[in-house]
Each structure stands twice: as C-alpha cells, then as structure tokens.
C-alpha cells in the first residue's frame, strides 16, 4: 500500500514538473507583456525599465531557473496584471471553484448512481433505453449553450434565477447544472456498465438466492463492487472541472480559477498563469492519490496486491 502510494507520488511529481515546464515556455510564447502594458509611444528605456522590474530582461533560462527556485518555495513572483503576489491571487480564486466543482461532482455522482443502477437492473428494457437516450442527449449539449439557454429560460423569461453573481444559493443553480453537464452522462454509463458486471457476479447471485430485496442487492452488494471504476472515472474528471469553471466564468461571470485563467492569458500575466497551473496540477494529483487511496478503502483486494509492491 505505502510503496504503491510512494510510487504514485513520485510519478505525479514528475508530471507536475513537466506541466510547469510546458506552461512556463508556452506562456513566454504569447508575446512580451511590455507591448501590452506600456503605451505605443513608450521609449526603449521605458521598455527596458519595465522588463527589468519584472525580471523579463534576464535570459530565458535564467528566468526559468529563478522560477523553479521560487516555485519550490511557493513563490511565483508578482502578478504584473494585479500587482500582488501571484499565489495570493490564485488562492483567492480557488474557493468558489472548489465549491462549484465539489458540489457539481457530488450531485453528478448521486444522479449517475441512481440512473446507472436503474439502467443496469432493467438492462436492455425500456427504462435502460430511456436513460441511455437521456444521458446521451445530456452529453451532446455544449455547456456554454446550455448556460445561455438556461439564462434565457430561467432568468429572462421566468425571472426565477439571477443571470450572474454567486452570493445567493439561487445564483449557484445554473452554474452547477452547467458544470454537471459533462460528467453526468459519462458517469451514468460507467455506473451502468460496472453495475451490470457486479450484478452478474457470483456473490450477488448468491445473495439473490438468499432472498434479499432487489434494492438491497443493488445498493449494498453490487454498488460496493461497482465502486472502483466509478471512483476512477470521477477522479479522472477532476482536471475537466477547470474547463467547466472557464465556461461558467465566461457566461455567468462566476468568480474562480476560470475567470482568473482567462484574464491571465489575455493579460500575459505569466506568474499568475504559472501559479494557476501549479495549483490546479497539485489539485489533480491530490485527487488522483485520493482515488487510489479510496480504492484500497473500498476493495480489500487492492490492499493485498498493492502491498506486494506493484
């Protein structure tokens, strides 16, 4: 178990360094911030001064080294755009996104387990077909369009929900629904597949022979065994939540990492881009490790085989 986690941690750290390197150079390719922040008429001295203050006059590799040294100490430098430490800016944006992603993922899981289990129990019969068409339709709706149509119906026509903001619970309804759109369809299909496998297994057949009710069979016996693929796919969706956050930020002006990333890219704010990616990367890695740990909690067989030092 611990060797497994340790191995996972090492490979994750390598991934993170890779991500950081890619983003560092990618961000530099978007052009010089000087041309964006200084007026057209700026003299060469002013440009040099600007670059010197922001450390952009150094050779690229020196900048990269400084960045790496800083990153180890969690110092990503100052945001050119907001004139504050980049990490501070990023961490401020994190809570709304985490809350949004957490709520959306949890609701998606609940919906998916319900629908997927029903579909599995009534496999190839009408409830299964209906659920399959519904989930396929849900996965076919572009999230940004869903958000706009949601505004059109619930805010413009019915005056039930606000078009933006995040202070009231009502303002969360459309953003959460928008972010749920991508994971819920996939998760339902995964639950269905895993549940069909689990329901066919010997111990479930055995429990069935002993006369347990269908609901108990599904929720107690099969779900626990179907949990592995479900948890794994849900964890896989973690990075995708940032995509949802960007869309929700754009349509609902919902604060969070999405708005920040869009703004940082448009403002060539390298330090904030890097801090964002670093924090998101850490988040994804934490989720992946949690998923692995959860495997072991759910399924004792994983504990045994992983303990053998895979």
């Amino acid at each position, binding site marked *: 178990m611990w060797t497994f986690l340790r191995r996972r941690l090492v*490979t*994750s750290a*390598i*991934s*993170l360094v*890779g*991500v950081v390197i*890619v*983003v560092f150079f*990618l*961000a530099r*390719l*978007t*052009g010089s911030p000087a041309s964006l922040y200084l007026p057209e008429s700026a003299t060469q001295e002013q440009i040099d001064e600007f670059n010197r203050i922001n450390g952009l006059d150094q050779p690229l590799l020196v900048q990269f080294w400084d960045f790496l040294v800083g990153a180890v100490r969690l110092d990503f430098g100052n945001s050119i755009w907001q004139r504050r430490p980049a990490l501070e800016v990023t961490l401020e944006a994190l809570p709304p996104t985490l809350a949004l992603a957490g709520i959306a993922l949890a609701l998606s899981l609940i919906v998916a387990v319900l629908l997927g289990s029903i579909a599995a*129990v*009534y*496999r*190839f*019969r009408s409830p299964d077909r209906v659920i*399959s*068409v519904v989930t*396929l*339709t849900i*996965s*076919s*709706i*572009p*999230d*940004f*369009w869903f958000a*706009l*149509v949601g*505004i*059109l119906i619930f805010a*413009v026509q019915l005056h039930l929900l606000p078009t933006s903001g995040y202070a009231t619970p009502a303002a969360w309804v459309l953003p959460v629904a928008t972010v749920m759109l991508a994971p819920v369809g996939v998760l339902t299909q995964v639950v269905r597949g895993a549940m*069909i496998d689990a*329901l*066919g297994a010997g111990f479930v057949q055995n429990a*069935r022979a002993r006369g347990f009710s*269908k609901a108990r*069979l599904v929720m107690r016996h099969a779900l626990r065994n179907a949990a592995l693929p479900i948890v794994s796919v849900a964890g896989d969706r973690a*990075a*995708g939540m*940032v*995509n949802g956050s*960007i*869309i929700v930020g*754009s349509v609902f002006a919902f604060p969070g990492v999405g708005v920040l*990333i*869009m703004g940082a*890219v*448009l403002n060539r704010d390298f330090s904030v*881009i890097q801090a*964002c*990616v670093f924090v*998101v*990367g850490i988040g*994804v*890695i934490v989720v992946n490790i949690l998923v692995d740990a959860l495997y072991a909690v759910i399924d004792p067989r994983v504990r045994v085989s992983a303990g053998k030092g895979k």
Partner: protein
Amino acid sequence: MAIESTDAGAMLLPAPAQRRTGFSLTLRRFLRSPSALLSVGWLALLTIVAIVVPPFVETEANRQDLGLRLLPPFQLEHGFAFILGADSLGRPELLQLIMGTRTSLLVAVLSVAIAAVIGFGIGLVSGYFGGWLDEVLMRIADVMHTIPSLLLALAVLYVLQPSIMNLVIVLALTRIPVYLRTARAQALELRERVFVESSRSIGADDWRIIWRDLAPLVVPTIRTVAMLEVASILLAAAGLSFLGIGLQRPDVDWGMMVADGRAYLTSAWWVTVWPGVVIVLTALAANLFSNWLRAAEDPSQSAQFIRRPRRGKGIS
C-alpha cells in the same frame, strides 16, 4: 472486454470469413435500428450540405443588410434564406449555419483523424517495445492529462493566429493521449500472446509484428474510440470558438455563432438558439451512432439485438 472478444473471434475463425459475416450482420442490424438510421441520415445530410452548398451561398451568407438585422424567424417575405431569421448584422441565419457546418465538420473530422493516427502509431510502438521511451511517453501523456485541455488550448491559440488549421492542431494535440493510452494498453497485452511468439519464431522482425500482428487487432478499438470522440471534439471546438479564440471571420462555425448571439439573448433568442440546436443534434447523432456501432460489433453486447421474451427477469 472488447479487446478479448475481438481477439477471441479472430483466433477461432479464419479472418476473411469472420469479416464478411461480421459486416453483413452489422449491416442487417443497422437497417433494423431506427436510431442508427436516423443519426446516420442526419450526419450524411450535413456532410452533403457542407460539401455541396457553401460555394453557391457564400456571398449571400456573408452579405450584411442592416435593414434586416435581428429579423425574427419563420418569415418568408425576404426569401427562404431568412426562414430562421437574421443575425445582428442582417446575415441570414440559415446560410450562416450552412457555412458553419462546413467548418465545424471539417474541424471535428480532421482533429479526430489526426489525433487517432498519431496516437495509434505512437501507442502501438511504445506499448510493444516498452522501456524508457514508453515511460517518457506515458509521463508526457500524464502531463497532458493534468493540464486542463481548455487552458492548453487557450495558451496555444493565443500564441498562434486563430485559424481552422491551428484549431485542428490544438484539438488534435489535446486528444492524442486518449488514443495513445488505448493503443499502448492493447499492444502491451497482445505482445505476450502466442501468435506474436510464433511470428517471432519464424523470423518476423519487430516492425513486421507490430504492423501485421498487432495493428489489425488494435484498429477496431481505435476506430470505436475515434467514433466516440467525434461528438466531444465537436463540443470542444465549439467551446473554443465560443470563447473567441478558435476562429476569426470570415470563417464561421457553430460555436462562434452562439457567441455572436449572446449579446442579443434577451431580444433575439434565435441567433443563440439555432446554432446550439444544430450542435446538439449533430453531437447526439454522432453519439447515438457510435454507441450503436460499439454495441453491434461487440459480441458480448449482442444480447440486446436478440428479441427477448416479454417476461424476462431484470437481472440476468
């Protein structure tokens, strides 16, 4: 599951015979499935429209007429082109949608094809040889998995000029790991099989084994994944255009049209709604067809094509 069944079939039956039966069986099932027929019909219609119509309507589609701006839909007095209304610059929605169809389909198909071919090739080689190169490639795939795809696309498209080709490159780039992992996982499993061993024993070199023994068995899976990916690429491309970083006028696609309509959401719903409806229908058709195809070609799922007695028990 799919891997083993395909393989088992290939081992039990002589390959050509199995192909023929498989295909005609699939075709028969296809003709009996309303959802498959409908979705292929829609996709075929779109493809034909996208290829045939744009050259004839290109000028008319982009002609701006401020007198007709935000013209409501379902009116025929300005001609059939305005049946779906007009956008904020008085361009006919219907013709804009047709121009958008060409771009959206082209981007989706090209991105999927490029990502699938590259991912398939690299994954196969990487899985077969293993070793440090395999490790490095997997770490790169992990890295791409850790960066949110939209962020990568944002950054790259911000550097490159917005254009159809750059959009395709970015989308393909973000999806390569999907195929790479699939192909690698299969290659990893297949290389231990007896038939690979026997090929090697009669003197086949590595490349011959990869292309003659492994590739034919991996292709069906890659094809299935690629079909599944069409819809999500379509949505991803539309999303990038919606955010305003995918394309630039005069190129237009469905996502860009939704973005155009956004400012007039309260006064002119049709400008936002139509392109979205087309996206949903197209993605749904692609999803339905690929789902159906996967089920039809997978023997373990063929139970659903057999008519079941009404009183069948739920749990098998």
